[in-house]
């Protein structure tokens, strides 16, 4: 743009450039700060989210979740190999099921003997995931309930199938959920079969990286089920998390058992405070 001869227009243009350059630098600095301290802008963000969420509530109530479409298209591409794999899996799982039912019975009797309750299995509140941000590489979703139902930052979220993520910050009627698949979300796990400790971190594309402390050889095999270990608090032990789908150099790649795109109702659980030392002992 050329301002022409007008002195005033020239000065105005110059000031606009100065504001833009300074603003751009400040913006990038803010971004770096807000990565380091994500809570800093929570109030502003919550306000924007509360403005937008009524529309999401409305569209969701009209259509339900629309994300099954992706899956049903993708399913065609892998139908053959998937069929073979699923057959093998079903057979294997039937064997496991028999084994598990005997274990469950044994467990029930032992619990009766010890007079143990299911430790705090009750959730704080139930809600549903309204929407997520399909334009950002961070994996966040908006939960339909917030502080009005007792939701607070740090609380784990689970669906019937398994863990979804945890609450990042809670607004008056909505809350932001950091999904399991976000690359900043690290969850301490153990293998359901033998208690092998591991760590899951999101890959940002719907899958999880699974790493273990044991670096000597890769102990995983496809089909391993991973549950939370309760180490370090936040997530109580034994919430199902993921299924190992393939191996990689240092660990494995797993798929979350609960697909946030398909779950209807999620439960907000109280943040788990690890009993000092007790949950740290590896089995």
């Amino acid at each position, binding site marked *: 743009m050329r301002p022409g001869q007008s002195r005033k227009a020239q000065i105005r243009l110059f000031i606009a450039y100065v504001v833009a350059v300074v603003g*751009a630098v400040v913006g990038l600095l803010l*971004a770096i700060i807000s990565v380091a301290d994500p809570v800093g802008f929570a109030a502003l963000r919550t306000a924007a989210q509360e403005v937008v969420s009524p529309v999401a509530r409305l569209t969701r109530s009209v259509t339900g979740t629309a994300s099954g479409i992706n899956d049903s298209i993708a399913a065609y591409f892998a139908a053959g190999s998937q069929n073979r794999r699923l057959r093998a899996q079903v057979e294997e799982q039937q064997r496991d099921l028999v084994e598990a039912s005997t274990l469950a019975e044994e467990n029930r009797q032992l619990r009766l003997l010890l007079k143990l309750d299911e430790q705090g299995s009750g959730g704080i509140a139930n809600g549903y995931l309204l929407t997520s941000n399909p334009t*950002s590489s961070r994996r966040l979703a908006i939960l339909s309930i917030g502080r009005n139902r007792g939701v607070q930052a740090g609380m784990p979220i689970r669906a019937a199938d398994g863990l979804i993520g945890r609450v990042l910050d809670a607004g008056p009627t909505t809350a932001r959920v950091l999904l399991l698949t976000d690359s900043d979300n690290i969850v301490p796990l153990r293998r359901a079969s033998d208690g092998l400790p591991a760590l899951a971190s999101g890959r940002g594309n719907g899958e999880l990286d699974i790493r273990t402390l044991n670096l000597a050889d890769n102990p995983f095999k496809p089909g391993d089920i991973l549950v939370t270990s309760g180490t370090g608090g936040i997530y109580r032990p034994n919430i199902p998390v993921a299924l190992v789908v393939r191996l990689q150099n240092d660990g494995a790649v797993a798929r979350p058992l609960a697909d946030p795109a398909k779950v209807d109702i999620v439960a907000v659980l109280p943040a788990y405070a690890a009993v000092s030392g007790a949950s740290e002992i590896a089995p």
Partner: protein
Amino acid sequence: MSSLAPQRIGEPPSQLRLQSVPIMSVMLASALPMMLPMIAAWAWLPPLGLLLFLAWRLLHPSLWPVWIGLPLGLWDDLVSGQPVGAAMGLWTIALLGIDFIDQRTYWRGYWQDWMIAAVATSIIIVAGAVLAHPGTGLSLILGLVGLQIAASILLFPMMVRVAAWLDRVRLFRR
């Protein structure tokens, strides 16, 4: 498109409509993904706000002052879940870049606009992902947003049509 007061034939559109249509449309496009009932497993939807923003700017070089990326980018950050300030900074840098190109070239047409938008969108998406995941390798970042970049580039011509249609609404005279 009539405002509250009856419009006389040939009367120029109100200042409010002239100014608000581009700004409101970009804000709406930024917030639109958050209004849809989808839980996305990965980032696949193009940043609609950014695309419409670039489309308006390339369609109307003198529509906005060069700092307009600051408020519009802030809104985009607040609703998109990116770290606050990322779009503020990157959108403004894109506008400065486009201004620079406009000063150096005598003309640009459809293909040049598309190319400028493609380059700007790619850089902004990658830089945004780098800001959101500091310390992540570039190959992993490209894996995260590669599909989104391709989708964005392909969607841009449609966003130009949207901006052009909104422009007709903006300038409508009876």
